[in-house]
């Protein structure tokens, strides 16, 4: 007696696709991205996205680095100044609202009011507070460098072929004056927390969806052929500002982001979802791809995700660099939210 599941491929059945498979051997889970070998690829997102960009770069793909550091700097020194982490020096973009804000600001359609935070006589770009270790010397320096940075960001949006964006969080802090959102809570890297000036926001599904649709639409207005590769960061929340348990809050945030990514990829041909989240978080790995803190992804986990991605998308250097050459710890020093973990480690 036939039923709708008769004849369906193996990867659609849990037993054959998951129960009987090792996590390194999942079949038909990675999407194939057409034209990736020649595409100009830009990256942004939460800190897990740093690994994607880093791997694209070392495999010789056409990775866009619009604010390239001088080769005079070692990689470590360049990273300290926010170079080479993403395609522009925007630091981590954790939320859909932050992405939309950056898109609008880059195209000159928004001008956030409260953008410079001070600490110990140094000045920080509040919209990318970790971009320069120790901050800047003056307000003027922050302003001038941000204005020049935004031009590069705009150029990136206008010319990229594929935009890889890792969605990280739904929780954020916003200005009560104009709704500007920040990658870190005021007072963590710089600035002062004043409840009258800043409020906690936990973006809901409809808001994340609307942000992402608006960002996509604005980018397409200037670059109609841009495609999007979405991932969801498997890194848990360092802390939640809700009253929920941090594990519940993490599940909620990631579920919202995963649902939005699915919805966008279902709605638009130019949006693809890359399930690095499922590879890391899913049952097959039995949480073995996490560090002992069960929050950060291990070097091996990152390597495994990228191996699967490049194995399906046969692009770049055929074999990629030897595993020992891949600096899988790359980037974790640049996670703003990890500062919360350090702060409350006691």
């Amino acid at each position: 007696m036939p039923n709708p599941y008769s004849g369906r491929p193996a990867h659609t059945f849990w037993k054959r696709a998951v129960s009987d498979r090792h996590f390194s051997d999942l079949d038909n889970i990675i999407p194939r991205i057409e034209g990736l070998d020649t595409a100009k690829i830009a990256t942004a997102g939460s800190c897990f996205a740093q690994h994607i960009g880093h791997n694209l770069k070392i495999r010789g793909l056409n990775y866009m680095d619009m604010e390239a550091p001088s080769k005079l700097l070692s990689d470590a020194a360049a990273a300290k100044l926010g170079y080479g982490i993403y395609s522009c020096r925007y630091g981590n973009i954790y939320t859909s609202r932050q992405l939309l804000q950056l898109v609008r600001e880059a195209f000159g359609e928004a001008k956030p009011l409260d953008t410079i935070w001070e600490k110990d006589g140094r000045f920080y770009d509040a919209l990318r507070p970790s971009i320069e270790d120790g901050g800047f010397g003056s307000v003027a320096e922050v302003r001038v460098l941000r204005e020049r940075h935004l031009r590069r960001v705009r150029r990136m949006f206008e010319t990229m072929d594929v935009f890889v964006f890792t969605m990280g969080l739904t929780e954020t802090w916003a200005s009560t004056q104009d709704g500007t959102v920040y990658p870190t809570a005021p007072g963590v890297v710089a600035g002062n927390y004043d409840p009258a000036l800043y409020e906690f926001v936990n973006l809901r599904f409809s808001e994340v969806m609307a942000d992402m649709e608006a960002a996509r639409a604005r980018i397409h207005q200037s670059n109609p052929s841009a495609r999007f590769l979405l991932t969801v960061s498997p890194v848990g929340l360092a802390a939640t500002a809700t009253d929920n348990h941090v594990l519940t809050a993490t599940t909620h945030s990631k579920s919202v982001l995963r649902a939005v990514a699915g919805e966008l990829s279902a709605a638009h041909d130019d949006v693809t979802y890359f399930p690095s989240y499922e590879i890391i978080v899913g049952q097959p790995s039995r949480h073995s791809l996490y560090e002992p803190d069960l929050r950060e992804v291990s070097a091996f986990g990152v390597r495994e995700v990228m191996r699967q991605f490049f194995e399906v998308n046969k692009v770049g250097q055929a074999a990629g660099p030897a595993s020992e050459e891949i600096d899988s710890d790359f980037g974790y020093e640049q996670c703003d939210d990890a500062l919360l973990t350090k702060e409350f480690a006691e």
Partner: protein
Amino acid sequence: MKLIFGDSHVSALKAAIGPKASPYTLIANHGKNLIDMQLDLVGDTLRVFADNTSASVPLDVTLTKGDRVVLSGPLHSSLVSRHRFWKSTAPWTMHEHFPKRQLASGNFIKTLAQDRTASMVQLLETAISAGISVAVLEPPRLSRRALTESGIDERVLVHVDETYRAEVRALVEATGTVVIDTPKDTHDGAFMRASYQAMSDTDVHHGNKDYGILALANAAAFLDDETSGAEDAKTTTDTSQTDTPQTGKARKSILQKLLKA
């Protein structure tokens, strides 16, 4: 031992001495060998070793307590300031002059200085801890030929060069090490005077024998001045400008010997 060692700028000082016997040992090596050095301190003996480039023999120097050493290398700014990066990037303070360029923050050159001199600063600290008197020799200012051939805007080149030197100088002096300034007569405040430039068509930043004579005299004043050491010499030193009667006499004596050669 009285030793002058470090990057290729030591060659001008070697040229100044020529084949004559000298109370000083001079070792010129490749600048890359100063970027990452292996330091082995055993008792009072410090071995400095680096083999970072096939373009040079390895750097292999052994220093002991009581040695007086002049290191050339930390303030070698030429490779930084002449780098093509500065054709497309400008220091942020010059943003009005370069409206289309990428800008480098104030931290950029500071980080660059820390990054490139980390191993040399560690060498200075280790040498001082081992009782070795050490000074750092500033290389010549850039030549105007460097400006022409690099194609970098003069304002950018001079700013980067001066800022980088100032940042490195601060790092070096923070260890308690004397900086021996490039001889005052050899530059016009920004660039090396043509009469002190190496004459090779391809050389844009080294000094010639005449430069070497003046620089050697300054270095010798430190090497021969047994009263000054790393611990008591906290100030920047261009001995041509701040001669004491004793060091001035010694310097003139060295100069006379060298100029007779």
